[in-house]
């Protein structure tokens, strides 16, 4: 079939507007942020559960956590990485297998907040998130690095322990894999690493270890008893 060369030059203003609009859209698409909503499957952990009833409170900024990085030059794209949903999915799965009982809190533990009765409440946060893509580093690896903050408190909100923990995930470039898919995979690997690190380090945190020792000796003497008055199990 013969293809006329003059289509764009001899057509009317309407067609010209359509083509110009498409071109502008294409340009805008090139300038837009690359967005990744992290999605993955997180297997349940295989271990002997710690005989504790643990509560979890996800602060709003954790449950909806996202990371935005503006483009530093014309050749780069801005990045928006939403990890909140996957974070909650992974931590729910992990803590459910790691402790004998897991309960979600109704609100941030405090003397005035009615919450289910538990031995302690864990409050996670993301202190820092960094990512690297091959365009930044010239290494054919996508990386995500996160620093978590954890607070272990009584149902009254009294602190038991506070510590930080890092997690790292990477994935190499792969044929026919988009930047977004690779960043998602790196984030999933980082989340799995966070779970692995938490399981292997939780009982080694000095304050947690002391609290667990106290709890083992006499559960009533451990500092969770103050919050039981507010419990609504």
């Amino acid at each position: 079939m013969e293809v006329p060369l003059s289509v764009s030059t001899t057509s009317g203003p309407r067609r010209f507007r359509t083509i110009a609009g498409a071109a502008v859209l294409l340009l805008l698409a090139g300038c837009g942020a690359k967005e990744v909503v992290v999605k993955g499957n997180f297997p349940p952990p295989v271990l002997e559960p710690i005989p504790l009833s643990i509560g979890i409170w996800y602060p709003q900024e954790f449950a909806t956590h996202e990371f935005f990085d503006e483009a530093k030059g014309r050749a780069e794209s801005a990045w928006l990485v939403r990890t909140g949903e996957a974070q909650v999915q992974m931590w729910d799965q992990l803590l459910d297998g790691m402790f004998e009982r897991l309960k979600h809190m109704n609100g941030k533990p405090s003397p005035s907040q009615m919450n289910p009765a538990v031995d302690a409440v864990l409050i996670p946060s993301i202190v820092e998130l960094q990512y690297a893509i091959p365009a930044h580093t010239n290494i054919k690896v996508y990386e995500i690095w996160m620093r978590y903050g954890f607070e272990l408190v009584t149902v009254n909100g009294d602190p038991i322990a506070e510590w930080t923990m890092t997690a790292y995930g990477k994935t190499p470039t792969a044929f026919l894999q988009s930047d977004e898919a690779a960043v998602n995979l790196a984030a999933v690997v980082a989340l799995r690493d966070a779970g692995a690190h938490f399981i292997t380090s939780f009982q080694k945190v000095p304050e947690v270890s002391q609290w667990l020792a106290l709890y083992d000796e006499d559960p009533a003497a451990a500092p969770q008893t103050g919050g039981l008055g507010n419990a609504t199990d």
Partner: protein
Amino acid sequence: MRQIRAAVQRGVVCALALAGLSGCVTSTVDEMVFNEPTEGIGDATVVILGRRHASDYETEFDFIECIGDHVMARDSSIEILDEIEFINSLYPWFEPRTAPLRPTDIERLLQQQPVAERLATIKLEYMIWVDGSTVQTNSAGSMTCGVGPGGAGCFGFGTWGNASDYEATIWDFTDRAEVGRLNTSTSGQSYMPAVVVPIPIIAPVQGTACDGMGDQLLQFLSSEH
């Protein structure tokens, strides 16, 4: 009985495929094994796992799958577990951060009762760790492609080299001991001349490494080879 076998195979494969062409590949395989199972592995299972704790590379999942497929295709009595399924079914004990680095670490793993039970259920006999990757070593040339009303075409020449280097360590899961070590190094040069139509002449570097390592593992695991 301790058996040490050091076999060095050097081969240069320059084959013309049916429809297209394939590049030249040089492959070297070194092998050292102890306590080879002379009667095969029976109804026990084997898992092949990639090492992924290095910062600048990780052993490719598809390479591990390729070795497993190579072995099972040649001896259907050998059951090789799927790597991802195995890692997921024992989360988090085979993540890059927690994976055992020495056979003695298996004891630490088995202290977790649910882990010990799961491993007993699958009758794991050999755990094979593969460490390495395939990288592009060089590239040169240029190619120009164009599209016009009469059609499209390319003109130019491109060439690139790939190199694979993998080491497999075989752990006897029952004896908690290392019973073998295999190494395969492969390199090759691929070419892409283009006069209107680009003609890729790809050197199957990773595939040759997979075949080399698969053949050596087959000799170790199978009573028929």
